């Protein structure tokens, strides 16, 4: 359960201060499938980063599963990222010198999982995302869609409760993008909370709930009716 209340984010200070988020109130329940939309610069990525503990809000409170995370220190934040959040980025962000399997295993390294279990889990997830035949390939040997599948497998490997995907289809053609959306939809059906940022209506239409940001404020929050 994600609960944001009066979240603000301001870059810089004094006369140079740029308010990016200006008081976000938002609740996302476990197992929801949410799309965040809005014009460029409206603060979508900033919001995602705060939800994912990559960035800290300037004001307001954020609680995950009922716990206020404001007090968390560096190390605890790393643990929260590691255990609760799976990130999927627009630019994939795979480690170029590691093969698909090793990339997927990386979060498990930091969680202190044994080598054998790391390998089992990574191979299992790569099979799930349809890359059984590509486990030994380097990122440079994979197509964009395949890279994003590896990234999704990586996001899942630590069995997080929340998947955050910032424009996961942004760098892909529409057909490949649709496949990625199918995968994310399936994950949501299995019980994961999935939050995606997107510009595309068709992508947003796959989700259950659309939140629209404008100038750092939520201007619309609606259920998708299929």
């Amino acid at each position, binding site marked *: 359960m994600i609960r944001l209340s009066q979240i603000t984010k301001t870059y810089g200070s004094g006369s140079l201060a740029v308010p990016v988020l200006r008081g976000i109130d938002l609740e996302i329940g476990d197992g929801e499938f949410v799309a965040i939309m809005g014009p460029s610069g409206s603060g979508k990525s900033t919001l995602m980063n705060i939800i994912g503990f*990559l960035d800290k809000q300037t004001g307001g409170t954020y609680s995950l599963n009922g716990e206020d995370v404001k007090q968390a220190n560096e*190390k605890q934040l*790393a643990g929260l*990222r590691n255990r609760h959040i799976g990130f999927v980025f627009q630019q994939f962000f795979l*480690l170029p*010198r590691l093969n698909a399997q090793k990339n997927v295993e990386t*979060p498990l390294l930091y969680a202190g999982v044994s080598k054998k279990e790391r390998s089992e889990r990574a191979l299992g997830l790569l099979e799930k995302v349809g890359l059984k035949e590509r486990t030994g390939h380097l990122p440079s040997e994979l197509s964009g869609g395949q890279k994003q599948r590896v990234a999704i497998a990586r996001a899942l490997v630590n069995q997080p409760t929340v998947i955050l995907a910032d424009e996961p289809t942004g760098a892909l053609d529409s057909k490949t993008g649709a496949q990625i959306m199918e995968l994310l939809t399936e994950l949501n059906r299995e019980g994961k909370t999935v939050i995606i940022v997107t510009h595309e209506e068709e992508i947003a239409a796959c989700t259950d709930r659309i939140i629209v940001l404008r100038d750092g404020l939520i201007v619309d929050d609606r259920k998708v009716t299929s």
Partner: protein
Amino acid sequence: MNVRESFALALSSIWNHKIRSILTMLGIIIGVSAVIIVVAIGDGARQQMADDLFSTDENAIPLYFEQTTYEENGEMMWVEPPAVTGEQLDAVKEVAGVKYVLGTNSGWGTMNHNEHTADMEIIGVDNQYFIAKDLTLLEGRRLNTRDNDSYSRVAMIDSLTRENMFAADEEAVGAIIDINDNPYKVVGVYESTLPPEFRHMDEFSNGQMLMPRTLISMMFGSPEIDTINVIADQPDNLTETGFAAAEKLTELTGSEEGMYVAEDMSAYVEEFDSFYMTITLFISSIAGISLLVGGIGVMNIMLVSVTERTREIGLRKALGATRGQILRQFLIESVTLTSLGGLIGIGFAALVTAVAAVFLPFTPIINPVVVIVGILFSSMIGIVFGILPANKASKLSPIDALRYE
């Protein structure tokens, strides 16, 4: 992520930048190998010198008479060494640690036999000499006490003289030979102590003869004993034994104008040690500078690496790496880099000393302590110069690092 995995990660990262890594390690390689090589060469030279000075087969230390008064009425004065007798030497032999005391004299003789002529050294000996020097009797008999007591005109010749002066089938024992135009009888033949490669080179290589020292004294008008050598029970105690023997002999001769001294071989070694210490310090300080520069090079490369890998660091943090884990990763990488440099330096030093052994008159000895210190020191450089970049990496905020272009 455990240390082994961090280490594997570090090795792969070094391997992925082979040339850069080698160049970075160069300072460390040079520094470590320079120290090892210098110490190995110094130790080798020192060992060789000690071997030469205390050659164990000789195991003898000479006693010299050193005059202590130099002037009388303002004039320089030469003090005649006191006459030493066989009885006095027998008394010196009782000093603890002394095995034999050899009192000898010597002269040069021209030997004529069978139309052959040769100049050779004649050593005047007593009955102990043969045993003390561990000589090998080939024919006839050894010189005995009676030969000395009765000034017998007898000689032992060495195998080299026999080869040079006698026909192979000719009986040497009992032959009368001519030395300085006087006849002497050969009573024995002993194995030459000259190594084969030195035979037939100069007058020393013509061969050698032993005669009763009383006879030599009579022939040449020299003292019966003018050279004293002490042989010790324990080769290791040679110098100390020599000192004790010299002291005893001084006491026995009762000379007031001088004293007997044993040549202190360890003084040569000490002199060499201090000379060699200076060189070692000099090279070590150069090596130290090389290591310092190497360390700064490592720091520089690690800083570059942190910048280059900003996104990687951001990503790893996003995936749950803690600050400590990132710090450790970079620290292990720089330590691996410098330790590897240290290892290569050791390998290089081993190679250089092996090659040097072929060209030098002695074998360099690699000191394992220096090798271990080299490894530890190079790892330490990795820590010292890696801490700044590693700290910088660990402090990056994940989002800024991910956004880094």
